[in-house]
């Protein structure tokens, strides 16, 4: 207490001089409130986030099974037995592959469409009108409950009398109704499409705000030098967007690996047809709530997925931050060079 007061006197004489006499209880150094205001966060984090995390890790090394198990004990013979079992589990592997397939099928088109729209919406010439409206509409699906969206699509694609089948048959494209959700590949594509449909607007808005954050002088000089919109986008906008694209990649990857709501709600909740839409998180959930309360399997699976996420994010994070400045300089140099070359080309060949 004493040393705290001394420190405060050294740091801030005025406030002690003025506050000392009238206040009976000696005031705490106000910087101590940095700790006090952090207490709620830290306490809740320790109890509701960190402890469950540690507990999940612990469970993955135990024989935890069943709802009201008397005594959970750490495995003695082979501490990694649960992990080995999960790694050898065909359903887990299937779920892992599904999750990646669905994520890739959603992320690549999502990024491409978002980039295309970003290029269009940030043009300096031939501006597109009604951008505010388009942004609101494209982002809309993102805010709607994923579970509802999934059931809505399942109903629209219903067999044999869903609206999509109705349209297809009546317009003569299909000769008879098709059971979309009974084909493994199509079921995965449907889940990926819903994910894509819900997220491309979000990605677009983030990329647009990234473009708006680029120094406008670069664009102005490109404009003055007569660089075409396409070239400006490829040589100036894209390289500058890289950090934000990586950020989107990481968040999308984490969201994709833990995908749950859509595949859970679009089928019977077990990954129909024949496990085609079973994802990692659904597998984990089913290990416990499928009836067996196999905490040991579920926690080992959780930790394996966690490990994958850690490795992948660390990889992207390193790419993003390590040697950031050095790379930036190099990048700028290269960009200037490329830009000059583009300029030269432009002058030589006219507009093409």
């Amino acid at each position, binding site marked *: 207490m004493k040393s705290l007061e001394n420190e405060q006197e050294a740091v801030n004489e005025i406030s002690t001089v003025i*506050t000392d006499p009238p*206040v009976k209880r000696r005031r705490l150094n*106000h*910087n*101590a*409130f*940095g700790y006090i*205001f*952090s207490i*709620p*966060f830290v306490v809740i*984090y320790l109890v*509701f*986030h960190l402890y*469950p995390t540690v507990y999940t890790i*612990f*469970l993955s090394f135990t024989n935890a099974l069943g709802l009201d198990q008397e005594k959970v004990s750490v495995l003695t013979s082979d501490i990694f037995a649960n992990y080995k079992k999960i790694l050898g589990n065909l359903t887990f592997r299937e779920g892992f592959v599904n999750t990646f397939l669905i994520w890739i099928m959603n992320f690549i088109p999502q990024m491409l469409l978002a980039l*295309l*729209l970003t290029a269009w919406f940030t043009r300096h010439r*031939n501006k*597109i009108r*009604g951008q*505010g409206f*388009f942004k*609101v509409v494209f982002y*809309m699906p993102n*805010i*709607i*409950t994923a*579970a*509802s969206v999934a*059931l*809505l699509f399942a109903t*629209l694609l219903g067999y044999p009398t869903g*609206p*999509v*089948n*109705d*349209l297809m048959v009546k317009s003569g494209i299909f000769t008879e109704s098709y059971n979309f959700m009974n084909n493994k590949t199509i079921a995965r594509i449907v889940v990926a499409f819903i994910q894509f449909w819900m997220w491309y607007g979000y990605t677009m*808005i*983030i990329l*647009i*705000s*990234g473009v*708006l954050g680029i120094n406008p002088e670069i664009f102005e000089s490109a404009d003055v030098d007569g660089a075409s919109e396409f070239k400006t986008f490829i040589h100036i906008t894209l390289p500058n967007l890289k950090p934000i694209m990586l*950020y*989107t990649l990481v*968040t999308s990857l984490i969201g994709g*690996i833990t995908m*749950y*709501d859509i595949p859970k709600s679009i089928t019977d909740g077990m990954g129909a047809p024949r496990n085609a839409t079973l994802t990692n*998180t659904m597998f984990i959930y089913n290990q416990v*709530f499928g009836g067996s309360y196999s*905490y040991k399997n579920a*926690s080992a699976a959780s930790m394996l997925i*966690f490990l994958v*996420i850690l490795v992948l994010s660390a990889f992207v994070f390193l790419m993003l931050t390590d040697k950031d400045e050095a790379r930036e300089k190099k990048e700028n140099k290269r960009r200037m060079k490329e830009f000059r070359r583009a300029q030269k080309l432009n*002058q030589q060949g*006219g*507009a093409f």
Partner: protein
Amino acid sequence: MTLIMDNNNATPEVAPMMEESRPKKKKKAIVFKIIAYAVCIFLTILSIFPFWIMFINATRNSPEITSHGVALLPSNHLTENIDYITKDGDFNAMRGFINSLIIAVGSTLCTIYFSTMTAYALVAYEWKLKNAFFTFIMAILMIPAQLTGIGFYKFMYKINLVGSFIPLILPSIAAAGTVFFMRQYMKPSLPMEILQSARIDGAGEIRIFHTIVLPLMKPAMATQAIFAFVTSWNQLFMPQMLLLRDKTKYTMPMMVSLLRGDIYKTEYGAIYVGLAMTVLPLFVVYFLLSKYIIAGVALGGVKG
């Protein structure tokens, strides 16, 4: 053509070149605009169409829906469908709405109040562990809750909180993402001189936080409140683990799964009405606040 090109090479003036290609450019611009608007309109239809069918089919009965799946205009069976969905069965939109509202409001209040407080601790004070604490918050920013859910569930089961809303509300006091956003927003805008003079006037730190800092942070808090609310409202994984046994505690997204139940199997109109009920509150929120939501999404992106 060649003459102009030569001329252009000799003296890099832009004027003749522009003159030459103006009609070509104009044509290109028109083609571009046609393509761009066509794509945008297509995507607009793609966004709206599923919801349009949902709302329209909510007003039609099963025979109508099975004979014509798609209709552009509503029919007159809305009340029948609502009667069917509210009559019996487990689906209870009102229950789900109230449960979701309690959880979402509770966790939103916790998130924004305590995140602002934590961000304030990170911005306004000088303390030893400050930087370490901030690094820690950055590190836990992206840990997905699904993967520690097993330990969380078993822990809640042990302390008898399964079936309670508390595990869905209290943990949102520690929302790393919101703290991060609040700190970024607060850092350049917090007027330290005002805080200092309030201190000199004898105001306590807690009072300063409530009377000066919170009002200043209102815009950021509003943005974060929208996202915290929507995220909490839409979440399925955690509530499904914790509230599965007791159908009276089901949240709105959990109610959706009940629409797969047998009694609705052939009552398409009822399914659409049920879906519309789960989606309608979000539509209202979105169209009232879309301007702020879009701005908020854009702000969130810059942090990366």
